[in-house]
């Protein structure tokens, strides 16, 4: 059974790392639902958040393959209930349609959206939330003439307590007990 997973990858800032990661998904025929890249809480460490739908078995395999990449530090896979996440969407709607009556007020209030800009031609709304909430708002706005719509990738924070820093420390310690690589 396919389900939605959020992959959080902490990586070095190495050129080409995104390519290496997407190749792994492409080979396994997994579509990327959304992707965001940003700096993490640790300086110099990038955080990539990728949302995919696949099976439980397959996500374990691709996660291990990602973690194997030299420039990837740590990979976390979470189902949606293990994380707190948001997406942000911007809507550009024609003013004419929306200004009649109290429509705009209701919509903004009901959906916890925000008005960013109003001009005689268009209004720009912002909505932060889950994909389903954003799609609902989009559906509601459609009759009034949506001129543009853009939704961001997911940003996510895990509920688990152990942070990247402690993993980095563990990795450091493991390294101290290392032996010279033997090759015969």
């Amino acid at each position, binding site marked *: 059974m396919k389900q939605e997973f959020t992959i959080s990858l902490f990586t070095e800032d*190495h050129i080409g790392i995104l*390519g290496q990661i997407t190749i792994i998904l492409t080979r396994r025929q997994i579509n990327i639902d959304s992707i965001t890249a940003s700096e993490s809480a640790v300086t110099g460490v990038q955080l990539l958040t990728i949302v995919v739908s696949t099976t439980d078995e397959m996500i374990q*395999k691709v996660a*291990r393959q990602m973690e*194997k990449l030299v420039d990837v530090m740590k990979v976390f896979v979470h189902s949606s209930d293990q994380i707190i996440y948001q997406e942000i969407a911007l809507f550009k709607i024609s003013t004419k349609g929306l200004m009649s009556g109290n429509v705009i007020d209701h919509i903004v209030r009901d959906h916890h959206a925000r008005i960013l800009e109003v001009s005689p031609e268009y209004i720009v709304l912002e909505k932060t939330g889950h994909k389903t909430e954003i799609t609902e708002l989009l559906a509601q706005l459609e009759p009034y003439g949506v001129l543009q719509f853009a939704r961001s990738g997911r940003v996510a924070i895990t509920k688990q307590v152990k942070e990247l820093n402690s993993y980095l420390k563990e990795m450091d310690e*493991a390294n101290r007990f*290392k032996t010279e690589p033997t*090759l*015969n």
Partner: protein
Amino acid sequence: MKTVQEKEQATIEVNGQKHITGAEALLECLIEEGVDTIFGYPGGAIMPVYDKLMDYEDRLKHILTRHEQGAAHAAQAYAMVTGRPGICFATSGPGATNLVTGIANAFLDSVPVVFITAQVVSSLIGTDAFQETDIIGVSMPITKWNCQVKKSHEIPDTIAKAFYIAKSGRPGPVLIDITKDAQLEKLNFKYKKCDYIRSYNPHIPLHTKAIESAAIMINHAERPLILAGHGVLISGAEDELKAFAEKTGIPVASTLLGLSGFPSSHRLFTGMLGMHGNYGPNLLTNEADLIIAIGMRFDDRVTGNLKKYAKKATIIHIEIDEAEINKNVVVDVEINNDAKEALKYLIPLVKENSFEKWIREFRICDKTEYEKVIKPETIPEKGEIKMGEVVSRISEITKGEAIIVTDVGQNQMVAARYYKFNHPNSLVTSGGMGTMGFGLPAGLGAKIGRPDKQVITFVGDGGIQMTIQELGTIFQYNVPVKIIILNNNFLGMVRQWQDMFFDKRYASTELVNPDFVMISKAYSIPAKKVSKREDLNSSLQEMLASEGPYLLDIAIEKEGNVFPMVEPGASVSEIRLTY
């Protein structure tokens, strides 16, 4: 023109650091890493490096192959027989793309090769300049790591990192792409070997709990079987494997690349696994109640139909690459560690035991296989010469002391089946990729790596023609490798499949061949054609006794098939002895 000495004096030292060009820095780095041999091919973008190579001739021997693919395979074979990374140079564009097959081959077989490619000057990158290809993009999925260098001062650290990554953990090829301007630019040279990368930790602490539970399972098993892979050789765990098998009395089977990790003549050795492996270990995999897989990856050529693979067995998997665990076969105990370290911890925990009844089952299978397949293949009384016969004679004459190199196809399977290996790392073959054309350049690389050993390369009449130009390299450097063409005038392995699965419709598999003896002689390599059984032994003896390189073109039965065989889609227990 300046003399070499003048040039050397021109390298001034500032604060103990040499002020040298990127090209010189690259060569200094290689020397620091203990390199003495490079396989490669020059071209425009890499000329600054080649120019400096002349000044390092006393310390770095460069072998000019006839094609970059040959250089890549030779470097890989060199690494496989010496245990040290192979080094391969190529220029930008076509030089770099000619490496691709060789890089992929090293990647699939986990062999450390450091590939250095040159790139056009950095200001031209991205403009489709003359001989510019995006080799970083091209090689991304077939290298363990790759990196482009555009500034000379980045060369030492990048090379140090490349060596560390190539050698450690599960080894593999790395590629460093150096722009021409970085080769020419000067830097203050200082080298420090790399032993730590924050995002990469090949030194996995021992999973002692898992090993302890494995020991309990081993101590209670009734029909246990060890599957030994290439990882045994890579981690240098041959002695530990032997000690473990001898203490527990558990029979050992080997993957193709695992061959020579356990002596073929050992009483506990049951043979090779997989599609053309031995009867016993394939058949009895499905009777085992415990499988201890060490340094192997359950490739589909080993497992056959996964749905019917080892269903009666609990599986313990010792493997350094976590991504290989539970990839193809779901296992019961994961031991994500180096084979040698894991075995060292495991051996004291297991009890002394013996499984004579279980081993007798293997011996019964061996007898069947001997009567039905091995005897007619290795000691035929009449008819044309058979491949197995040639390999067997070589095995007997060399007493298992030679290094055997193969190409791909029937010649490869037969060489792996009938040579009796006595020493670790004495089989060099293309396992994961099955690259035709590997044999000849790999033979060259193996002989350069181990000049003290008799190196014999078996090739098909098809495969040799993919890289036959390397006879030129063998001639130029007088590399005394012995070449045996098992000549059936067919792309034998494909013909076998046509015979078995495509109604004997031999579509494009018959070859009209040149006179290989004449070709060899044109390169001044002594050669001889053998067609009669009575000439075989003396010709092999003559070849092995000769000082230099030698080529034997042996006419083999045209339509011989390799058996046993686990047909595609079949289970290992459905292995066939005939058809």
